[in-house]
């Protein structure tokens, strides 16, 4: 426990010194705010361009705030997930291949403590970035596009957080097994497969963690049924599996001691 906290403290210090604690939240916030602002100005922009027939322009209405929040989640699902994966692809691989892990693991540090601290560090970064971004999107949507029911919006935000934390855990697992770029690619592929299988065969994959993303969106837009128990349980299990799996793999891994 003591070691895990020490290692976690080092993770946070490293992220602040490398400005990761700054740029990841900033990019996330931009991503979240862009959608409501774009949607708000889109009709005006189109009208200003002048080539739109009047009939078409009149059908272009500014969407409601809940709809835009659902679109924001959709943005997270592509670029947001990519950001989570890229920010975490060298989490373990970086230390394992540069040789810095060697000097740590010869001490009274177990691979489990090492992995758990890495995981906590990444989770902290992603949760902070996501929360700030979601709140910013919420704020802009509500002042520009009308009020949002705070209960459902909060619920949807928390549900989506679980999905994004699963992505953060998956990159931890792959970063333990593969080198940076390959780890990122493998994680993206896995996440795409999860999403695709669920959207192609929703009845077969009703327990899929990808369901969380879909449910969060339908909760906001008020369409479709929401069934959370199964996907939530499976997501928690998958996150645990990632952390336990990464620790187990690291236990028997060759740790390079020079770059």
């Amino acid at each position, binding site marked *: 426990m003591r*070691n895990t906290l*020490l*290692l976690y403290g*080092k993770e946070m210090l*490293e992220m602040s*010194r*490398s400005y990761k604690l700054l740029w990841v939240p900033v990019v996330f916030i931009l991503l979240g705010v862009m959608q409501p602002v774009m949607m708000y100005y889109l009709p005006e922009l189109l009208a200003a361009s002048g080539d739109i027939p009047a009939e078409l322009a009149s059908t272009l209405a500014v969407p409601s705030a809940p709809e835009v929040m659902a679109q924001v989640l959709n943005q997270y699902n592509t670029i947001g997930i990519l950001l989570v994966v890229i920010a975490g692809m060298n989490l373990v691989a970086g230390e394992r291949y*540069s*040789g*810095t892990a*060697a*000097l*740590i*693991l*010869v*001490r*009274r*540090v*177990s*691979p489990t403590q090492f992995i758990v601290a890495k995981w906590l560090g990444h989770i902290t970064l992603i949760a902070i970035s996501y929360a700030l971004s979601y709140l910013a999107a919420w704020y802009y949507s509500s002042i520009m596009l009308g009020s949002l029911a705070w209960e459902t919006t909060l619920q949807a935000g928390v549900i989506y957080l679980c999905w994004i934390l699963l992505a953060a855990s998956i990159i931890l697992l792959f970063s333990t097994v593969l080198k940076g770029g390959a780890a990122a690619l493998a994680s993206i592929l896995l996440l795409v497969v999860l999403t695709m299988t669920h959207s192609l065969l929703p009845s077969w994959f009703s327990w899929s963690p990808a369901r969380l993303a879909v449910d969060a969106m339908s909760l906001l837009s008020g369409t479709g049924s929401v069934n959370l128990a199964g996907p939530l349980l499976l997501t928690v299990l998958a996150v645990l599996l990632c952390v336990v799996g990464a620790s187990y793999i*690291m*236990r*028997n891994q*060759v*740790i390079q*001691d*020079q*770059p």
Partner: protein
Amino acid sequence: MIIQVNQLTRKFGERTTVKGISFSLVKGSCTALLGPNGAGKTTTLRMLAGLLSPSSGTITRSGRDQSKGRLSNNHSQIGYLPQHPSFYKWMSGMEFVVYAARLSGMSKQEARSEAEAVLERVGLKSAARRRISGYSGGMKQRLGLAQALVHHPDLLLLDEPVSALDPVGRREVMELLQELKGETTILLSTHVLHDAEEVCDRVMMMREGEIVENGELSDLLAKYSLPVLSLQLEYHSSQNAADWLKSLRERPFVLEYEQQSGAATITVSNMKEARAVILSEAAERHIPLQRFEAGSSSLEKMFMKVVQS
């Protein structure tokens, strides 16, 4: 017995880097792991440090089997210096050593005072507050030594501790190792024989993954000593002296004779007689001898002999 190694083997695919070596280290000893490049020294040290699991064989440390993966949380302490240590470049030297000490179980205050002491000891006191990214190669090597020492390990594993240092740095580190000899058990790998001769009292020689020789330095020196005389004349010596040097070839006690300009290496059958004859003749004829060495081959020759045989 601080560590006991039994039939330790490591394969990398088809290649076997370490082939079933067995040895043990006595508490407080200083052992040099000698061998040419690619002999398996680094692989052995990495297995001892627990960074590489053996393909087969056991490592028993203080009576506990270590080779079952890196799960040990309470093992006796090891200090490990890799050949090219790499650090968190965004930390200062001081921060890294404190971090390392705390991960080895020291309290905050203890870690701080120990880190200060050890950084002074390795000569990094003035650079302790600087970021590691600005350190030179030699400074990194010293920092590596500092992090290996800070928690007072009972076993110190050093992979080529001086090969990256300049002569002054080398000298300082060798002196530091001399000091440490009494405090802890040291196993260091090197291919520079002179270093081994200087600090260690035991030598293990490796060749192609096997230990070919293992013992007290003095025993090995006696075992491999050769009845060899080596002479060197002053650079601008007279023809007279050169002729005398050449004439030594004809003496009855000479078995082998080798000459390179003003220097000769002579293998003799009777060391006592040969030394007496040569020294008295040289004195008589006022031969300008620059160097005269009799007896034991240095570790260098022994090394070549063991490694090539």
